[in-house]
């Protein structure tokens, strides 16, 4: 056997043996044992083989050395690759064991909700804020002057019958406002500056009435626009824009003459029934229309009352005109959400309130 032949045989045998052992190593410890067996500094099989080169000639030694170094590189990289594979397999196994039942219910963070009347009120506020209005907050406890007299309802006016009033026992002379229209008067008296007004006044109002469609307390939004050259056409355009923003552009809006003591002309605003689409149903009492807003041009008598109280003419009916309007927030919420009993709004029953989350 020539030395070279002999070396080649030994290399082949060693590689064969390495192949078998590497194949069989299925843990990182076994892999380390294979590494020690073939590449260990002291007793490694390849290390031994390298030691046996000492007997060769210089030229033979050089050729054999190159061959064995290449073999060493090959074994090392195969050990490395096997190590990586083993690690990946073991991590995959570990993660597989961490599988959870993803169909179990999640932990819902606590979540409350705004009251439906707040939802509707803020929406209305936002529509008018977008048209340049301010939101005015007037008092709920009023006196006769602001609630009635300044609104062209002198004592014993028949229109007062429509609004049965709560009076305070003490302090005397005070009452709970029956409508947010009192906010008009408050604002004009408190802002006797250039008569340019654009406001809405949302808030609670009170009437002595309690049944499925009436609560002794409910919520209204009053609106007031005053300025030079304000017309009934402006009233129409503004309220159409408002109703279309609130309910969508598909519902017709109609304006018909009516009566309120503090507006002249007075206008009732109807919206095509959002429940039946105008065909006629229980909610619209078969008419196809929902009474949704009361409105009108500010009666000059109201300006006169304000001027009288101010002691000078600030709101001169010859220079300015205006329109006012009012709507019930419950009414809109009832129509929109299909609420049939107004009292549900004020009972705090979570079965009701949670539907508006």
């Amino acid at each position, binding site marked *: 056997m020539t030395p070279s032949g002999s070396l080649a045989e030994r290399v082949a045998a060693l590689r064969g043996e390495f192949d078998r052992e590497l194949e069989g190593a299925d843990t990182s410890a076994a892999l380390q044992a294979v590494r020690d067996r073939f590449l260990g500094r002291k007793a490694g099989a390849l290390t031994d083989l390298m030691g046996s080169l000492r007997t060769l000639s210089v030229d033979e030694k050089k050729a054999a050395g190159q061959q064995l170094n290449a073999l060493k590189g090959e074994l090392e990289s195969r050990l490395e690759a096997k190590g990586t594979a083993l690690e990946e397999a073991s991590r995959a196994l570990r993660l597989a064991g961490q599988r959870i039942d993803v169909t179990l219910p999640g932990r819902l963070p606590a979540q409350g909700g705004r009251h439906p009347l707040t939802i509707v009120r803020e929406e209305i506020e936002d529509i008018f804020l977008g048209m340049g209005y301010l939101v005015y907050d007037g008092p709920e*406890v009023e006196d006769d002057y602001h609630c009635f007299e300044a609104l062209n309802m002198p004592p014993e006016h028949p229109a007062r019958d429509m609004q049965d009033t709560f009076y305070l026992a003490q302090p005397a002379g005070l009452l709970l406002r029956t409508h947010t229209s009192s906010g008009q008067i408050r604002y004009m008296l408190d802002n006797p500056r250039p008569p340019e007004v654009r406001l809405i006044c949302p808030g609670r109002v009170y009437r002595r009435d309690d049944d499925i469609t009436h609560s002794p307390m409910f919520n209204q939004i009053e609106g007031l626009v005053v300025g030079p050259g304000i017309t009934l056409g402006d009233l129409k355009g503004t309220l159409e824009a408002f109703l279309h923003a609130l309910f969508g552009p598909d519902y017709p809006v109609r*304006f018909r003459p009516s009566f309120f003591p503090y507006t002249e002309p007075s206008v009732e605003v109807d919206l095509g029934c959002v429940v039946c689409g105008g065909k006629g149903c229980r909610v619209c009492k078969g008419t196809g229309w929902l009474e949704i807003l009361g409105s009108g041009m500010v009666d000059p008598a109201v300006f006169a009352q304000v001027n009288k109280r101010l002691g000078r003419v600030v709101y001169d009916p010859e220079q300015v005109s205006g329109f006012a309007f009012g709507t019930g927030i419950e009414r809109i919420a009832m129509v929109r959400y299909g609420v049939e009993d107004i009292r549900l709004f004020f009972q705090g029953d979570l079965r009701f309130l949670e539907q508006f989350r």
Partner: protein
Amino acid sequence: MKVPLSWLKELVDVAVEPARLGDDLTMAGLAIEGIETHGGETVLDLDVTTNRVDCMNVLGVAREVSVIYGVPLRAPDLSFTEKGGPAADALTVAIEAGELCPRFCARVADVAMGPSPAWMRERLEQVGVRPISNVVDLTNYVMIELGQPSHAFDLARIPGGALVVRLAREGERLTTLDGNDRVLPAGTGVVASAQAPLALAGIMGGASSEVGDATTTVAFEAAHWNPLRIRRVSKALGMHTEASHRFERQSDPEVMPAALARIAHLLEKIGAGTVRPGLIDVVAQARTPVRVAVRPGRVDALLGTPVPPERQAAILTGLGFADAGAGAWDVPSWRGDVSREIDVVEEVGRHHGLGRIPSTVPAARGVGTLARFQRRERELRTVLVGLGLTETISLSLAPESPGARVPLQNPLAGGQGALRDGLVFPGLLDALAVNLRQGRRDVALFELGKVFAADGAGVRETSHLGLLWCGAVEPAHWSRKARPADFFDGKGVVERAATAFGAGEVSFAASARPDLHPGRCVDVYADGLIVGWLGVLHPDRAEALGVRTEVVIAELALGMLGALPGPGLRVRALDRFPAVVRDLSVITDGQVPADVLLGVVRQAGGPLLRDAAVADRYEGAPLPAGRVSLTLSLRFQAPERTLLGDEVDRAMQDVGARLRAAGHEIRGE
């Protein structure tokens, strides 16, 4: 107001279907409430607004119809033949109270009592009036047709044939036609004989002069009454009649002769009798007709659309206005609601058609913004909703509580006799009870609203926030048990709420309040002021509600918080050097509030101590019973450099020394 269609058609031609007629009347201001059929007759039910007494009769509605369709109005037939001796020989009338009764008209008639004909009875039934006898039915028929209420006296039962119109005297009584014997309030208008009242002016006749089967001669009365006087008496006596309804809304002051003529005509027509010659017409206060000047262009300027002058004139003429030239119009007597230019504008507008006015939107004059308080309220709602609370709205009315709550003079229901002075009591607790009754155990509610307090001659309104928790704040989940709300849930939310409201930090101090757990109650402070309270509902009250867990409640005066300037927001430079955190456990007898310990630590920590907080609280083995270990976490930081270990050590030693000096034990020493 019910209007039989055939009756309407006697006075005006109607070419359209009833449904269309209803729509057209609605758009002119007489809202149709319904169209009924009544024994083959179509009856319109109209909602007539309180100002339009002129349309509370068939003729008034017919006049509207004639203007709507541009067709002529047919006046009712007023012709009749007088018979017998002069009326004035049988009846005299004197008005003593001219302010009560500006004008009183009467006619004397010889009658044959009996039922009225079927057609008249049917029409009365169609409009909701009960037929009684031919004479009484005639007065009602003419009231429905022309709007003038009238009354028939049995002339034989008017002592001396003399009527006096005056105010009732103290203690006078009258038995009215409904059989009630009434004491008349002072100032009540009456039609009286020389001795006693015979009828309540403008409201109801009296029993003593009532017509009956034996009646042969009647005095038909038609008068105009002061609306306010009728209204007062009607309210005082609780009597609301077809007559008072019209008089208190200011009926036509000049229609009385026509009404009596119509009665005479129909009396003859139905063969029930004839009238004697002469109208008795006593005028106590002459009426001045109303003339209104309408400036050119004013109608167009207010409506926002041009209405041609000839169209304006046609509308007004059709409604009975008379052109007085130079833009002035004489207002018909039946339109007591029209006295100003603006009223005329309305008349033109409603008949020109509101639908024909083009819609415009006035140009915005500025940006619409919420006030600071309004923005804060919205922000607060958003935060509270995110923290799991549901908003509720309670009635602002609460049970009376003398000295505390502002009382109502005329409450509607028991338990609603006053204005609320807080949101938790009773509103939120009532809402809790509602939910508990439904078997609901986990409740978290808030309300934002005003509370009321007497303030001298006025009432002060303050915005409050009320909070309530009961049951689980962390609901049961497959991974954990439910955790019920406790004091500290409330405390955390109150802090968050104050911040969300822009009020900066709040602090808490143990307190005592009625209805709260004596050991679990604090006052909430901001800027040195008490702005609210927080605590656990007294267990006795919770038990009364049937609640076994704690009910945590809190109330904040947002009005006060809103008045505070708040911290404002300026960004602080980011820390460039690392902080050092050291923990320290202090063992106490359990009576020392954590706040006190933290106060000592903050004082002793020196300028490098940035923050100190409670990191843990422990009691139990190996600590002796009654001892509590509080672990405080101290964070040190210098703005311009990295801290050295021994600097922090020295600060910690100072803190430890101060705590020991205060009698506390440091754990692990």
